[in-house]
């Protein structure tokens, strides 16, 4: 055993990323690890990728990764990313944010970007609650869980995110837990290489905050839950992929080809310009 001070992946991180603000065992760190591993393995040109994040614990990730990055207002990373992508289609634009940011306040942007098949990659770290503000109920909080804003138990039906994404028209949809980090990395690689709107849901742990609502005090408790409840079934019906305490359906749900907004836009522009030339 050797005591070290630097990690081989440090080159993909800004100084802040090496000492991030996340709590002990927070899944965000695993996603950060997984994401930069994917960048490394794909040997992606770091000058040509932009990471965009929203608000919440995971929102910090844009600042941690050593690429062009932007930390937007709450709920708006997707439309910002759309602007970047359309302005410079040669950039890979990745949105990494949380369940609250992407599906509560930002829900509208998500479904429309998916509908348009914008060529952006959206990674949602789903920790089932609002962690940064102290554990309030969110769009993915399971029924009956008591949070600080559902002290008598949650009465809202949670989103089934992979179903929502598939239904909105995403061309690639996958879901993994942080325990399945290697498969997560593979999915991220696949998404980064795929044209069109891709969505990856990362079932993540929030031991400090959500752990209190669920009596899963130790980080490992979450991992053990993931281990116990996970069911890998590729291309199963996303509609049947609801997450319950004893079943977390995982795998790739969608992987289809469909012309992206950018492609269609470029085609149109060329048509228009040709017509004009002909006219002129």
């Amino acid at each position, binding site marked *: *055993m*050797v*005591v*070290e*001070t*630097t*990690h*081989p*992946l*440090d080159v993909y*991180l800004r100084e802040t990323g*090496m*000492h*991030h603000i*996340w*709590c*002990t*065992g*927070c*899944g*965000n*760190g*695993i996603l*950060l*690890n*997984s994401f930069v*591993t994917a960048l490394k393995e794909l040997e992606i040109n770091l000058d040509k990728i932009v990471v965009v994040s929203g608000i919440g614990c995971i929102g910090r990730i844009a600042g941690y990764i050593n690429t062009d990055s932007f930390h937007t207002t709450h709920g708006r990373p997707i439309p910002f990313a759309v602007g970047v992508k359309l302005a410079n289609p040669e950039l890979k634009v990745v949105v990494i944010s949380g369940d609250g940011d992407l599906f509560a306040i930002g829900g509208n942007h998500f479904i429309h970007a998916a509908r348009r098949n914008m060529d952006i990659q959206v990674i949602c770290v789903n920790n089932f609650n609002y962690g940064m503000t102290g554990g309030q109920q969110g769009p993915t909080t399971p029924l009956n869980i008591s949070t600080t804003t559902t002290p008598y138990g949650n009465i809202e039906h949670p989103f089934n995110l992979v179903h929502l994404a598939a239904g909105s028209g995403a061309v690639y949809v996958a879901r993994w837990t*942080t*325990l399945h*980090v*290697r498969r997560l*990395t593979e999915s991220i690689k696949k998404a980064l290489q795929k044209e069109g709107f891709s969505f990856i849901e990362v079932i993540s742990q929030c*031991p400090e905050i959500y752990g209190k609502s669920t009596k899963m005090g*130790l*980080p*490992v408790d979450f*991992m053990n839950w993931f281990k116990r409840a996970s069911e890998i079934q590729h291309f199963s019906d996303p509609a049947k992929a609801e997450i319950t305490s004893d079943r977390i359906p995982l795998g790739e749900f969608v992987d289809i080809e469909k012309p992206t907004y950018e492609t269609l836009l470029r085609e149109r522009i060329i048509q228009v310009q040709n017509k004009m030339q002909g006219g002129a």
Partner: protein
Amino acid sequence: MKTVTETKKLWRKPLDADKIKQPQAEIYIITDRCKGCGYCIAYCPKEVLEESEEINARGAHPPKVKDINKCAICGYCTAICPDLAIFVKEKTNEQKEAEKNERKE
């Protein structure tokens, strides 16, 4: 598969046992990054790691190596660490040499 039972039945030392050299692992730990979540310890497939007594700058007990020879260099600890505080590599020949010399002294 009945491999496991079979393997028990197989008692001889394979003739090529010495020839095949299993790669030796070196585990690197960035002690002060560790927040002590314990994933690497709990989910190491070969139970190579254990919690150390040491308390680091963050007040956590970083992992320490229990039995390096068990390590298969699968790198799961590297992949699962939320704090990029641990990574494993195959031992370089230099390192092996160095160790040999140490043993000599």
